[in-house]
């Protein structure tokens, strides 16, 4: 029970710490408001996009698939697109983890269905957290479909006017095969990997600021340990029948509680004030718990590795800025070049933010994100408390 009493005491102290409340609650709400309004108009139409990868899932392997691959590699698109062949699973995972803005899926039997006059769906999977790049992919795919339809109209007209076109000539035209059959029904089906819900600037920054300011709760955790040492309340605890490991676990539990309560308040206020839809509340809370756990673990690790508490708090504050920037709290992940997206994986903020974005767009519980965050927390708390308890 000592662990629980220490955690409850910290919770009570946090509730009475006006400076802490300002940092953990008021600041993020102010920033969400400012950034939400500031990026409200421009959020979905930022022009700078750069060259980016587009996944091509070729489940067909037919003539039309080859033709489409050629289109994607056309000189006119080289400055924009880098087509990459992927399996369906790999493309799906890459989109979920933010590595790809989208993928074009050429389903099995696409060519034969077109040739046979069946309905054939060319699919586009897109990352709902990104705006421009998926839109470009959809445009390219749409353009291909439009060309098919336009060619069909031309051939239909040619046949109708009595021109003599041999079937092998039409085949040689590649895309016109289907049109020659006169029954082609090709249409574009653009599916967001999620339900296609839009993440507006308020929702994005509500998530981003929550992820960033939960990191600051780690700073308060470090200050709390420093304060216990300075005031000799730690010495008094160590003279009582309280093992140091229980003290540290109590501090960890208290910090997780504080971070979760901080998140719940930010979640509720942004829902009520900005009408943000974070997705399934239960899944959101589970992810928030994993994130709070990760933050606590990392701060315990910092406390263990940097014995000078003032230096540890400073290092943490700097680390928060870096982790938040890398994780997408400041600049949307959709604006990151691909190498930065790879680097972002080292930040717990990235895993939290991506997970919340997934939930906000209707994706199921991001188990990978929860696993990564929970493992970070577990490793941090275990190593941190072990080392601090020995110190």
């Amino acid at each position, binding site marked *: 029970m000592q662990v629980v009493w220490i955690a409850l005491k910290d919770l009570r102290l946090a509730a009475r710490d006006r400076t802490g409340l300002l940092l953990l609650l008021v600041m993020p709400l102010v920033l969400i408001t400012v950034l939400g309004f500031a990026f409200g108009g421009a959020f979905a139409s930022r022009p700078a996009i750069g060259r980016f990868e587009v996944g091509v899932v070729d489940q067909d392997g037919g003539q039309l698939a080859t033709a489409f691959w050629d289109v994607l590699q056309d000189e006119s698109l080289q400055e924009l697109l880098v087509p990459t062949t992927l399996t369906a699973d790999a493309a799906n995972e890459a989109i979920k983890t933010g590595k790809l803005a989208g993928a074009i899926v050429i389903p099995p039997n696409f060519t034969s269905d077109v040739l046979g006059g069946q309905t054939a769906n060319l699919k586009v999977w897109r990352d709902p957290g990104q705006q421009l790049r998926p839109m470009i992919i959809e445009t390219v795919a749409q353009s291909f479909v439009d060309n098919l339809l336009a060619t069909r109209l031309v051939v239909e007209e040619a046949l109708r006017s009595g021109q003599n076109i041999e079937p092998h000539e039409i085949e040689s035209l590649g895309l016109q095969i289907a049109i020659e059959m006169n029954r082609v029904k090709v249409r574009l089906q653009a599916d967001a990997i999620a339900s296609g819900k839009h993440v507006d600037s308020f929702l994005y920054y509500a998530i981003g600021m929550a992820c960033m300011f939960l990191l600051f709760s780690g700073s308060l955790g470090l200050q709390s340990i420093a304060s216990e040492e300075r005031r000799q309340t730690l010495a008094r605890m160590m003279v*009582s029948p309280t093992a140091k490991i229980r003290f540290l676990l109590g501090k960890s539990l208290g910090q997780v509680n504080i971070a979760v309560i901080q998140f719940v308040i930010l979640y509720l206020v942004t829902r009520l004030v900005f009408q943000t839809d974070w997705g399934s509340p239960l899944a959101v809370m589970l992810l928030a718990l994993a994130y709070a756990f990760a933050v606590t673990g990392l701060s315990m690790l910092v406390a263990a590795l940097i014995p000078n508490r003032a230096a540890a708090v400073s290092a943490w504050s700097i680390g928060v800025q870096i982790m938040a920037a890398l994780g997408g709290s400041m600049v949307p992940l959709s604006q990151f070049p691909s190498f930065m997206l790879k680097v972002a994986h080292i930040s717990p903020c990235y895993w939290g933010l991506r997970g919340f974005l997934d939930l906000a767009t209707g994706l199921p519980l991001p188990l990978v994100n929860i696993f990564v965050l929970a493992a970070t927390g577990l490793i941090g708390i275990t190593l941190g408390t072990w080392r601090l308890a020995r110190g």
Partner: protein
Amino acid sequence: MSTVLQVSRLSKSFQQLQAVKEVSFSVQAGEAFGLLGPNGAGKSTTIGMITGLLRPDVGEVFVCGEKMALDAHRTKQYLGYVPQEVALYPDLTARENLMFWGRLYGLSGTHLQARVAAVLELVGLADRAGHRVATYSGGMKRRINIAAALLHEPRLLVMDEPTVGIDAQSRSHILETVKELNRQGLTIVYTSHYMEEVELLCDRVAIMDQGSIIALGTVAELRQIVGEESQITMQLQNWQADLADQLLALPTVTRVTAQGGGLAIASSNPSLALGSIASVFAEHDVIMRSVEITEPTLETVFLHLTGRALRD
């Protein structure tokens, strides 16, 4: 009478500094034992080892017959500790602080509430229990600091300079409280560099200097070290260092020590000595600003043993 605290040959070093050297003593049940010495004498390091906060390099501590160590949780139940700092949470009320500390000692429910009420009554702060500690005066904080150490009814109360930095009235209240606790049978180890406090409270005293115990006994026994010597403390003007040698040559003067802006002169017959001293001063045009004659105290004992004042 049973031994509540047994300290055997404790030594502790911090890098090159040997803070405590071979310190041994024992404290019997119901006794008030004082550790007296100037700042840096090794008192707090000794207390740290007694309470299990510091691991001795050499030596052992037994509390109520059980060995003390950082993880000796059962042994720690016997011990109450009043740290030098006010080890409380300023943003919690006195009652919330006490409830928290009581719970760490395994107290709960009505027993915990009764103990909190009892210690608040003891330190005279029952009427302020609902106020945050941050709003208390220094003396009130010190009183709650003591109350927190008494919640679990320890058999040994260890107090590390519990009156540092407080006003005379609060100090007097604390000393009375400690005396009353000792009258009720609580064994106390009290450290201070205020010799009056130790003289008032303690049955036996160990005087520490530079990590070692240089004298140990009852207050009366320690006073006998300096015999019947009184101390003449003078504030002087226009004097040179060689004045001490000339005073030491006087038959009624046994020791001369520079102290502040004057001299501390030990003499077994201060009335007689004063005349001779005045003559020496007149010869050298030394102006006497003030004179104070004090009977032998622990301060005198410390001065006699070390050649330095307790608060140098």
